[in-house]
């Protein structure tokens, strides 16, 4: 999957939870889930579960720990897909 496809998929996943439309419209690799998109931290659990379901992967808590931005989420998804 190329970068754009991955960002598009992540964008669809986070959409139901975002609380800042402008940051969502300008979503990029640098976007932070909590500081920029204002996703509440409980919904970040949902984002991670949705990512697991969408890509059919499992994210361990040690990996989840870093997943606070689009970039970090992309890295972890790519890592998991590579070993599938």
């Amino acid at each position: 999957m190329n970068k754009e496809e991955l960002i598009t998929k992540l964008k669809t996943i986070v959409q139901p939870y975002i609380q800042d439309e402008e940051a969502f419209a300008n979503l990029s690799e640098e976007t932070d889930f909590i500081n920029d998109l204002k996703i509440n931290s409980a919904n970040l659990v949902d984002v991670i579960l949705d990512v697991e379901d969408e890509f059919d992967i499992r994210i361990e808590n040690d990996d989840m720990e870093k997943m606070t931005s689009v970039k970090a989420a992309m890295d972890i998804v790519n890592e998991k897909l590579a070993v599938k």
Partner: protein
Amino acid sequence: MIGNDIVDLKQAAKDSNWKRPRFLDKVFTVEEQQLIADAKNQHQMVWLLWSMKEAAYKVNVQQFGKRFFNPKRLECEFVSLEKGQVVIDFETYFTSSEISKDYVYTVAVLNPKQSYKSEWFRDKKLEISKQSDHLQNRFLKALNLDLTTIIKNNVGVPKLYCNTKVLNTSFSLTHHGAFSGYTML
């Protein structure tokens, strides 16, 4: 250092489904999951534990300046339902919670003997940015300091500024749904 977290239980029921597969296992230790399973009001117990973890996390970020997302690593223990401890690595945070049918509110501190000021209030349903502004204004008013503003640092910890000088007041702000709260040492 001090941290707080409020959960609007009605809002939480709308926003999150903790009964979805794997949700509890991502967030809670085996012991905590047992506490939830045994609780009379499971929804309240889920969010009480959550607010304890979140309040303790806020102190941890102030201490070490490093963000992370791993609620399970913050392990809760109860002394009573309103008093508890949250342990992560070698740190222990002491928590005091208020529990009602509408909200749970927790304050976490490093030193259990230290006194602090804490207040929560019910807000009109505002959009999130306005709710945050309203909470900040209310906190600044309670401080009774002129010319102060709040700016978040690079790890999202709010700091008080007077002109361009940062003040070392330790405080924490929280809002969720219809509820907001602030606390300070």
